[in-house]
């Protein structure tokens, strides 16, 4: 099972083990990690599951999709490492993934 570390804006880290196949957003929500709202439930339609992917993992998580890019255009404090976590599908390759969370979700 892939392990993911979510780091809150204040530095608090949450380590969770989740089965491959789901999304990073689902991993946070099902483990009660605070800071991910996911209002649309994973439809890439609200931008409330914004995360910053740790630089070392950027190649492995892949590129933003078209709709994801459109939604990130209206999120706050977007960086080159910004992704919507509902659009990152967990594979065994992502075991050890680290993501940081923004100060707030718009």
């Amino acid at each position, binding site marked *: 099972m892939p392990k993911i570390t979510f780091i809150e804006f204040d530095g608090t880290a949450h380590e969770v083990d989740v089965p491959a196949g789901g999304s990073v957003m689902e991993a946070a929500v099902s483990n009660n990690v605070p800071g991910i*709202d*996911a*209002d*649309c*439930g994973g*439809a*890439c*339609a*609200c*931008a*409330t599951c914004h995360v910053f992917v740790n630089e070392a993992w950027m190649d492995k998580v892949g590129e933003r999709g078209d*709709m994801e890019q*459109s*939604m990130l*255009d*209206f999120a*706050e*404090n977007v960086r080159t490492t910004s992704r919507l976590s509902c659009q990152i599908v967990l594979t065994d390759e992502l075991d050890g993934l680290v993501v940081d969370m923004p*100060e*707030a*979700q*718009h």
Partner: protein
Amino acid sequence: MSQAAAIDQQRVTDTHDADAWRDPWSLPLESLDPARAILFKENVHEEYFRRLRQEDPVHYTADSEFGAYWSITKYNDIVAVDSNHKVFSSHKNIVVGDAPDEFYSPMFIAQDPPIHDVQRRAAQPAVAPTQLADLEALIRQRVCTILDDLPVGEEFNWVDRVSIELTTQMLATLFDFPFEDRHLLPYWSDVATATPSTGRSDVTFEERNKVLQECLNYFAQLWHQRKNEPRKFDFISLLAHDPETKDMLDNPMEFLGNLILLIVGGNDTTRNSISGGVIQLNRAPEQWEKLKANPELVPNMVSEIIRYQTPLAHMRRTALEDIEFQGKQIKKGDRVVMWYISGNRDEEVIEEADKFKIDRENARRHVSFGFGIHRCMGNRVAEMQLRILWEEILNRFDAVEVVGEPERVLSNFVLGYTHLPVILHAK
């Protein structure tokens, strides 16, 4: 049959037909026209949408006062349409009725990319979550002042004294609008939305235009003033200084359109969620008791209030191409109405959707803010105002008792109240 008896018989038939619209289950399915404003004023719309969700979730009304239109009534279908902006365009009209061309004022909610994107990005910093954190203390102070001025033990209209007053003060702050003139904002907002295109015919397009010209003139002065001052985080200053929008005043109708958008967006919506929360907690007294015992439920309740109220009943799109959707053939140019009020009652996604539950799981999962690139920009402002208001109500009052039937707005767009008589009980 005598002539008099025939007339009586006719009268009975007329009365029956005249009331038939109150019960959608008695009407032929294909004739259902859920966009009639009277349905919302009389609070009979819910059964229309219940029937449509069950029997014809993507429904075509061939003939209505607004022309033909599709109704999208289920939660997941609404998400699908709302997030497919390449096929379902917002250009020109986002309510079921079309505004006449001579009164067309462009605004970014009724635009597609790229115009939508650059204008929204210019205005958005005023309501960004981190910006709002700085405003919280000010909002709390104002909420306290409003609540402390209310009479206890004596009937008054909650809509005027609280719902309108609080949202007006918030809007004045977001525009950095002269505080003493702030009551112009809800006036302009009401005139802007009271049009025949949402089923309200009490204001003609001509009257509306005259009032909105005054609004335009007032804001043009503010624009000139802000343009010559350093950039700050109010809507007018942000638009006047953004490279993409700094010449907006050269197209006065576009400036006006965006002003209306920002005023209405911050006014009619939260106003009616503030009133709606009072009504819901009165209809479900056990929820009020639960809230008093568990004040930490306020943020969750705020989402539930916004779901339950659904202050904007619908948004409309226009199909840019022929598309098959849930087995129906939508044609290029068709009006497609997403009924948010119906999506928020969809039992397949929201358990016991007709119930108001302040501790509902996944309360944030509602369609009131819309989805996709047009999702409500001020959602966090709305949530913050409601949260602070209910925190301070709990600090002061034992009950906000509704003492008469609320009067509802005549509109298929704004779901709200003009009058809500209440009596406050001291703690």
